[in-house]
């Protein structure tokens, strides 16, 4: 049962701090999201620039970029994922411990970007792993990455601890390990993971899309 904001402020003036378990649990989680050092291509340079002195991402809680997936909470997929690299990306995602989040930064990570017609380009990482925030841009400005980070924080804040909307790490039956695609003679097998990227439910798609 949440407390009304006005009452909270009044109590706060008296020196009494009132909260709910889910609020303080999510407050702790959202303010210490540690990204994994995972730069693939050009967007990685903008990600590095975001951590530098001008646009400092550390003030939002992303204090250290951990190289090891075991110690990281957030994977910022910055750059084009090629079919040669895709199995390693999924493997790294599997190695991260729950709760884990993914930001797809840049047009290439969302859908293949300017290189979409390439034979070696994976047309979006959300074919294999679930993505929480997508940032459009080529490359997105550092301010856009900060905005995405804040959006992720708002998303974490809104997650209830019980019920059907609860996050994966509190759900014993949720999918934990995602299948890693194999590199076959001409393409990746399977080309897409239908559980993560389902076909749209609408029965009548528009004329020129599939």
């Amino acid at each position, binding site marked *: 049962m949440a407390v009304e904001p006005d009452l909270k402020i009044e109590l706060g003036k008296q020196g009494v701090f009132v909260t709910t378990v889910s609020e303080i649990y999510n407050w702790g989680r959202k303010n210490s999201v540690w990204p994994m050092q995972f730069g693939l291509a050009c967007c*990685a340079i903008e990600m590095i620039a975001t951590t530098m*002195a001008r646009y400092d991402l550390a003030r939002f809680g992303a204090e250290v970029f951990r190289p090891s997936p075991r110690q990281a909470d957030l994977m910022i997929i910055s750059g084009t994922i*090629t079919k040669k690299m895709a199995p390693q990306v999924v493997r790294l995602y599997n190695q991260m411990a729950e709760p884990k989040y993914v930001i797809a930064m840049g047009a290439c990570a969302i859908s293949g970007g*300017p290189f979409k*017609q*390439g034979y070696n380009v994976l047309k979006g990482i959300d074919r294999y792993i679930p993505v929480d925030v997508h940032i459009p841009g080529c490359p997105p400005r550092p301010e856009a990455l900060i905005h995405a980070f804040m959006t992720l924080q708002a998303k974490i804040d809104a997650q209830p601890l019980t019920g059907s909307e609860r996050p994966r790490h509190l759900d014993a039956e949720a999918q934990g390990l995602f299948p890693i695609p194999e590199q076959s003679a001409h393409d990746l097998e399977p080309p897409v993971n239908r559980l993560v990227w389902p076909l749209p439910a609408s029965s009548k798609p528009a004329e020129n899309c599939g």
Partner: protein
Amino acid sequence: MATAFKSYRPPVMEPSEEGDELLEVAMGPHHPSTHGVFRMDVALDGERVVKLKPVFGYLHRNHEKIAETASYLAAMPYTDRLDYFCSLTNNWAYALAVEKLAGLEVPERAQYIRVITAELTRIQNHASAIGFLLQEMGASGTPLMYAFREREKILDLFEELTGSRMMCNYMRFGGCRVELPKGWLDKVKTVVDGLPQFIDETEALLTGNEILMARSQGVGVLKPDLAVNAGITGPMLRAAGVNYDIRKVDHYGIYDRFKFRVPLGDHGDIYDRYMIRVLEARESVEILKQALKDVPAGPIMDPKSKIRGFRPKVGEAYGRIEAPKGELGFYLISDGTGNPYRYRVRPPSLINLTVLEDMCLGQNVADVVLIFGSVDIVLGEVDR
């Protein structure tokens, strides 16, 4: 066929003791120090490197194939994404190759703008390269922060000129895309006036630093004749002692009008490469000071060149410039239509990696990361 000529192959190294097993380590593709998605299969004998095979292709984005189905102009934004630190020099290299193919002339003002943007790009690239090298050495970000602080000032200039910080897409065949904004040259002058102090600051912190000298002097030595035969270009070649700077050799653009020196190294080790980059940044500041003095008024595009419906005659051309990483060349074959028949990028980073194994053999595994960092590669260029 008698192979009487000299062929430069890396030496075959044996493990130190009989019966010793080699430890095979895959460094990458996800690695904090490999400048991107790059993998090295290293065989170690204790700490010593016995074999090293680089594996790449993790960022192979099919740039050459896409350019065959795109028009000449549509391939220009893709060249930004080759060496993503230095998009303006990539643009110039491609524009130069197309101008050779089609016989276009570049007006004076555009030549000056090209030189100014290219030298600014070179300075921020060398500063970032030094920053990343020091980060891999363990300096944990401070030189990188200094470098990126200056880089932000230069990126602000690029954003005002071209509309984008990194992917500038500014050069066109026969000139530049858009006229300089009012007051831009004064802003460039302000930034350039502050650059010598930044380089002095960096040198005061780094050049005489004991840890830098101990870790980089004598490590990763590259001999000049191997460097020439392996096609190394850029600061790595000049650090090995070979005097070959394409700005002086090919006389492209208007570089002949500016007085600047080409620094050369004596030993070919990591310290020399670091010093060459610092000295080249200083020479770039000299070029900028001279170029900013007399930028003429005039058109920025060749009046003969067409933006849309550009169809060069049948033939081929190879154009190259001295990019900050080395010789960036474009080889274009035209079949008379609006799309290139063959579009090839000659990537300096890929060719510079040819000698990675030679430089790392016999060194400690901790130095492999440093040697690799001193080559200064960008995966967008290696894999295209």
